[in-house]
């Protein structure tokens, strides 16, 4: 066999590994979680109970926790991410742009455990003092703010997630924004538009990229584990307000897995949670990739 042939077989072997890994992970999720679905069927998703002693598990509070924290994160981070992208491509003087982009990339590459440590000891007390207590005092009649807050809860986790995903969402939007054909911008200015009106037009033009950024960021927020595990309170109750301590699926796995082996069905239950998380996250990412494709076909 020629060395060319051997080399291409060699490369094919390596390229197949990722495919095998993804297949392996999906299979491992299915194989390890089917006992819990066999035992509880779908009530595993809609039950709110975590009782290792009775071997009774239902993931609903953690699933809600994942949805609530990522909803908080996405509603805070979307306006911030769009602003950051516009600011760094349109408003900031040219020579500062690389700096702010570097800052944003650095934020995206900080380990989540560092966000977690900072969130636990710096962010949580600040939010507690200046945001949660006032909201509870003055707007406590709204169910969202009705629980008497303590520093680590779903709300803190949501805000910390927002901080973490801003740079990520913003870089997707930034890329699309700077890829808009220049003549479009020129045309807009030549109509006598103000800068804000131009920005508005441009944002309308890259709407798909904004959706893509939001969905991809949502996928990240749902899967994020360590930072959330450090500030979410790790309490298994059905959340009644944003200020309740809670769990997310990933923080539940992080927190419960180390002692799961002592019980018969906890490991399948945690794999079951991971399987649900995988499905939800994959949906978000496929939605994001769909919108990115739309952007690409436009350009």
């Amino acid at each position, binding site marked *: 066999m*020629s060395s060319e042939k051997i080399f291409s077989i060699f490369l094919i072997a390596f390229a197949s590994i990722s*495919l095998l890994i993804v297949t392996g992970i999906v299979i491992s999720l299915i194989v390890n979680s089917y006992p819990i679905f066999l035992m509880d069927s779908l009530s595993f998703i809609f039950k709110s109970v975590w009782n290792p002693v009775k071997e009774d598990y239902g993931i609903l509070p953690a699933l809600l926790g994942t949805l609530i924290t990522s909803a908080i994160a996405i509603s805070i981070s979307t306006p911030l991410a769009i602003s950051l992208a516009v600011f760094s491509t349109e408003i900031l003087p040219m020579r500062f742009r690389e700096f702010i982009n570097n800052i944003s990339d650095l934020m995206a590459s900080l380990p989540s455990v560092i966000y977690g440590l900072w969130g636990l000891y710096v962010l949580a007390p600040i939010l507690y003092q200046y945001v949660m207590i006032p909201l509870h005092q003055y707007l406590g009649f709204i169910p969202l703010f009705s629980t008497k807050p303590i520093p680590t809860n779903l709300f803190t986790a949501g805000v910390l997630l927002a901080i973490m995903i801003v740079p990520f969402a913003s870089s997707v939007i930034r890329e699309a924004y700077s890829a808009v054909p220049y003549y479009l911008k020129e045309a807009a200015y030549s109509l006598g538009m103000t800068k804000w009106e131009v920005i508005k037009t441009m944002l309308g033009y890259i709407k798909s990229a904004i959706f893509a950024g939001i969905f991809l960021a949502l996928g990240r927020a749902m899967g994020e*584990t360590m930072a959330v595990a450090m500030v979410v309170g790790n309490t298994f109750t059905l959340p009644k307000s944003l200020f309740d301590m809670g769990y997310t699926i990933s923080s539940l796995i*992080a927190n419960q897995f180390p002692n799961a082996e002592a019980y018969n069905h906890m490991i399948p239950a945690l794999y079951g949670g991971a399987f649900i998380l995988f499905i939800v996250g994959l949906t978000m990412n496929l939605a994001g990739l769909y919108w990115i494709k739309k952007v690409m076909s436009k350009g």
Partner: protein
Amino acid sequence: MNKRKVIEKVMLGVISSLAIVSAIPIFAIVINIYSEGARHLTLDFLIDLPPPPVGGRDGGIGPALIGSLILTSLAVAIGGSIGFFTGLYLSEFSHTRLAQYTQMSLQIMVEFPTIIIGLFAYMILVAPLKRFNALAGAFALSIVIIPYIALNVREAYRSIPYTLKEAAFSLGVSAPTAYLRILLGTAKRGVLTALLIGMAKAAGETAPLLLTILGTTFTYFGGLDQPINAIPLLIYNFALSPYERWHQVAWGAAAALLTIILTIFIISRLMVREVKI
């Protein structure tokens, strides 16, 4: 001023202040981590065993630092080689069906919650051995970084001008020589950046380690089949402990980790900048 001008001023102001607000946390994080943690960063701190919760010596993060070095090197070696050849394949054989599937797998992997990768490594390497071990951690970290390395290596090889590739092959050398000796020289910085990005990811990743190496050992390296600690895991465990002294160790460890990440980040940025010129 007419109404449109006023709206413009207001909106530009709103956008700018929101942008600045979103960048504040990074400065706050770096300042807080160093103001709390930098004073711990002595040589003793880097090599000592962790302290007891109360009494005794001040201690350090020695085992975790060594564990992190071992795990990160292994991950970069394993994940780096798989990622490199995968990226090369994607760049040069992008038209094949396998390339499309691989591309899709990498995109899914990059967005995978890393804790799920930890669960996978647990099934493959922890459950059969009936013991948390370093190898499982390195295995999980390798999977985490493969997509980052592969996608960046793909870009590095893709950015080589076509004329250069033609020139390399017209020398009459074999494909491996052309790709790995001649063209690698051109793609060198891109490939190194890819490896650095992977290294930073592996050094800071925590979630999969929780399910693979467990970490709370107070011994230095004891073999790849034994539990091991890592800096990010130590930060997590100590930060959530009830002891103030362990919180301090967590801050010191965070300062060390942040320094590692910042160093890798700055080196990779400098390399990218030189490429541009």
